[in-house]
């Protein structure tokens, strides 16, 4: 028997597989298709201070070995999330952990959401989506060192729960941003969010996506995600959660070898919800084939 467990953020995850934010709604939608409680956990769709209707459609389309999305953080907002979604998660996920993805445009937005949820039950930690475009001073939190520091510091002061900061790959040196998170008191970072992209319908000479630009995810970005994870993991002691293009056990293992004790699966869920089961089975089979009794021993084991 291979032990898939990982001790991260102060708790024991039964396995390293989480579902990525925005790709599993609030869990409920996938309940009939995926045995959610068999997972390490899931990360909710972003929760913002107010409900958001999101961007005009089309919001998604296909790209080479991936997809583009510009959902525009459509979500039910803090109040309804707490009232309607969190109870379901609390009831239905007993062994899998929930991370609540939080988004905002000002530091105050984030702090407001965190304060509004902090005494509720049914989740372990926050994942701060620091990659919303057009925030204070026109940048993104995840691409501006000073802004990011301020964000993490302020959220840290607002909660005792673990904070994971989700970083953007669109920076020259993601390790530097991971360091800032660590210094300011974050408990982990997750790498990576999507890459900005533009898809054009050349027949109509118009963007395919209603919002013009969107974020690219899926297998296409996996090598970039593994790179970012490796860069971040070498620079900080806090755990790095690997994300980007994971479609099976071999992909998850790349991230783990690069230094991630946990990983998240996003886009691949849309292609085949069975990917979760298959990945877990694949990890067990790998462990058996290689005589690895604790998968945790593989974290960061890349010989480079």
């Amino acid at each position, binding site marked *: 028997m291979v032990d898939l467990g990982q001790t991260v953020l102060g708790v024991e995850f039964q396995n390293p597989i989480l579902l990525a934010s925005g790709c599993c709604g609030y869990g409920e*939608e996938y309940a009939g298709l995926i045995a959610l409680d068999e997972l390490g956990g899931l990360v909710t769709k972003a929760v913002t201070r107010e409900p958001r209707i999101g961007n005009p459609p089309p919001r998604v389309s296909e790209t080479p*070995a991936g*997809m583009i999305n510009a959902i525009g953080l459509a979500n039910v907002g803090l109040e309804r999330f707490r009232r309607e979604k969190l109870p379901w998660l609390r009831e239905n996920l007993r062994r899998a952990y929930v991370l609540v993805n939080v988004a905002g445009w000002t530091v105050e937005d984030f702090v407001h959401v965190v304060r509004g949820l902090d005494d509720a039950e049914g989740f372990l930690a926050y994942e701060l989506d620091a990659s919303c475009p057009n925030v204070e001073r026109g940048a993104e939190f995840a691409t501006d060192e000073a802004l990011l520091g301020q964000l993490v510091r302020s959220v840290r002061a607002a909660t005792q729960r673990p904070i994971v900061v989700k970083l953007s790959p669109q920076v020259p040196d993601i390790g530097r941003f991971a360091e800032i998170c660590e210094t300011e008191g974050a408990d982990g970072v997750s790498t990576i969010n999507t890459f900005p992209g533009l898809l054009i319908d050349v027949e109509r000479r118009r963007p395919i996506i209603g919002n013009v630009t969107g974020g690219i995810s899926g297998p296409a970005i996996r090598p970039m995600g593994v790179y970012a994870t490796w860069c971040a993991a070498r620079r900080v002691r806090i755990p790095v959660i690997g994300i980007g293009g994971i479609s*099976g056990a071999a992909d998850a293992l790349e991230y783990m070898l690069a230094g991630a004790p946990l990983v998240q699966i996003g886009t691949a869920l849309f*292609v085949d919800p069975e990917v979760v089961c298959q990945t877990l089975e694949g990890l067990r089979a790998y462990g058996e084939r290689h005589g690895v009794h604790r998968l945790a021993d593989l974290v960061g084991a890349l010989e480079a």
Partner: protein
Amino acid sequence: MEFAAPEIAGQAIPGQFVMIGLGLPGEPGLFLPRPMSIAQAEGERLGLLIRIFGAGSRRLTALEVGERALLLGPLGSFFDLGSATRVLCVAGGVGLAPFLFLPRWAERHAPGNRVHLVYGERTASAVFDPGRIHELAGVEPEIWTEDGAMGRMGRVTDRLDVARVDLVLGCGPVPMLKTLQAQIAGTGVPAQFSVEERMGCGVGTCVGCVVAVEDGGRGWRYERICVEGPVFSAERLRWSI
């Protein structure tokens, strides 16, 4: 095209759809699965009517006997016949798909309906064989083509008489549905439209597939076509905003 998919076929109701793809790792042009209306559900067999638009549908229609596709469904809302007895189905192009399934399903599950099917295409060459429609759906379609080379010349919405029906069902391109919506407005005849948008998950998690609908008098809101739709009450549709 026909697929062996007993679980989906057994539960399908006209208007619902499936997500069909190649699974992981996918292929160029067909990474994400595509939504397709259920066009037949007989025993263990599921029938789809797929028209070639781009790379995805081209790959799907090239599937060969013995190849496997990944099917998820039946998904979404469906046409609700309620107590209607005279049902008018208006199909534009590949919007014909659900109406290949509906009449026989109605016979079985809501007997006593009279279904009239109006079906239009731009050109005669695009028209799905009327004999085959009759065979599959059990009704004789009224055909319109814009070039007049088959059936009546013009658009399906050119001479619609909605006065003598209890329910109008529509599926086709947005301009057709908008015209239909305008024609029905004020007649008091209820209508349901099946609408399209590019999809990611097909099950409501990604919030990718929205359409603007009336929000109970308080303006509009987006609803997910894959969960709240694809069939919406026509009067609620505000299209993309």
